[in-house]
């Protein structure tokens, strides 16, 4: 951790030569290999790449859910473990992962119970984030009474309620249809603009990555490496139809090229 480079603005997340190898029955799997990446405060970083390239693994290492086998990583200048214990992360998993025996409201309150907020504070916070994801009025419903999209939004609300400075999202919109997805993309951008959180976002969709991010990290598998880091030149203010502009299409094209290089086709 001492070899953190001397930059003017300290990055929130700094990975140096990060490697992670899983030992499995049929030999080691190099999920991450020599990944070096800085994420500055307030950035919106998307990770894109073919299946199995280590996107999830990288997010999990940041969140101290996986231990790297080589290299270093710091979060807010601390180890990921210290950051986790300091409750620095909100994490949205790929599936909604709501507890079926709790109502939507109580699901969202779960992390708040754990950090020991009072009942009133919990209620206030829950109402606030439910509103943010357009689910006001659904707090007494059980997860299975909601559609898949609504569940996913509830799960995002839960991560937001936790109100950590770093929000890690692993394909949160994978299961949603295009229209709902567009809508949530807009909402997420607005939220990010308002709160200034640092966001790490995994996706499979090129338009989504381009539309949302200030920085797009393209990865390739076996071993999982970063093949390209694209800084987005799009303005902070992004209406939905920015997606039909030439700049947008150009960035999308560059991402697609980067991606294609990682695939076996062509």
């Amino acid at each position: 951790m001492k070899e953190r480079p001397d930059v003017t603005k300290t990055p929130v997340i700094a990975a140096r030569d990060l490697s992670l190898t899983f030992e499995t029955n049929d030999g080691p799997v190099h999920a991450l290999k020599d990944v070096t990446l800085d994420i500055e405060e307030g950035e919106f970083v998307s990770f894109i790449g073919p299946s199995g390239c280590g996107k999830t693994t990288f997010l999990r290492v940041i969140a101290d859910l996986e231990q790297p086998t080589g290299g270093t990583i710091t979060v807010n200048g601390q180890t990921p473990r210290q950051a986790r214990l300091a409750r620095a992360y909100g994490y949205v998993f790929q599936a909604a992962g709501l507890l079926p025996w709790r109502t939507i409201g109580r699901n969202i309150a779960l992390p708040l119970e754990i950090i020991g907020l009072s009942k009133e504070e919990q209620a206030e916070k829950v109402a606030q984030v439910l509103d943010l994801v357009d689910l006001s009025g659904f707090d007494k419903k059980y997860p299975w009474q909601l559609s898949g999209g609504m569940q996913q939004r509830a799960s995002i609300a839960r991560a937001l309620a936790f109100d950590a400075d770093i929000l890690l999202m692993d394909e949160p919109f994978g299961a949603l249809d295009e229209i709902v997805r567009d809508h949530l993309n807009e909402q997420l951008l607005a939220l990010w603009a308002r709160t200034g959180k640092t966001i790490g976002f995994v996706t499979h969709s090129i338009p989504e990555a381009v539309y949302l991010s200030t920085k797009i990290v393209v990865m390739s598998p076996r071993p999982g490496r970063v093949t390209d880091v694209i800084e987005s030149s799009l303005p902070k203010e992004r209406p939905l139809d920015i997606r039909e502009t030439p700049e947008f299409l150009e960035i999308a094209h560059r991402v697609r090229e980067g991606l294609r290089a990682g695939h076996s086709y062509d």
Partner: protein
Amino acid sequence: MSRFLSHALPILTVVALIVGLWYLAAIALNAPWARDQATRAGVDLSASELVADTWSQDKPKLPAPHQIATEIWETTAEKKITSKRSLVYHGWITLSATLLGFVFGAGFGILLAIGIVYNRAMDMSVMPWVIASQAIPILAIAPMIIVVLNAVGLSGLIPKAIISMYLSFFPVVVGMVKGLRSPDAMLIDQMRTYSASPAQTFWKLRFPSSVPYLFTSLKVAVAASLVGAIVGELPTGAVAGLGARLLAGSYYGQTIQIWSALISAAALAACLVGIVGLVERVVNKRMGFAR
């Protein structure tokens, strides 16, 4: 009404079928004795007399359903429940041992499951022996358990309850281990990102997740408890309880009495399982599992 038809009608049909087969089987099994008697008495039996006889013998090989029903009616409704001839009295004795054993068994099973889920050494060393323990014929060691417990001053209800616990803890362990491990890795990781304590993870995640498994195994366990209590009554000297009734009936060749004890035990088992099911439904509703 249509709900009733679609649910109850098939069951009633099957039950009616079984009762019908039962009457036929009673004829087949009891006829030899009826004929034997008739030959010795030197009379000829017509077919209808034969059937009537097979359904009304004193000690039939297989009593007809109505004979059992009559016996049960006489020994429940028509006897004071404090009377030693009342099935209610014997049922209560068995029930108390069953319930005590069930509580012991469920409690022990849950604790063991928690140990197994949270401690890998326990998982690896205990689990195989838990399975092996169920291969021991309990009836074989029941008398010894009772004598040994007697030697340390425990008698009456407790030894029976312990045998009943021995049979009932197993399904609970198996079910609870499964249940406590049922939340998927993602949910557990999620608790980690909240940096929740092990106790918080247990009470807010693992335990609620295991509730459906718990009830499924409790239903099996309560039925096993009853078997245990009955088995425990066989060697306690045929003093009281449905098991003793069974044994005494067997000792004196009173088939009707055996069957009525058996059917009462069955009804008791059905009630117990039903009650657990009811509790399950209430809990599910309150926990929001009901759909």
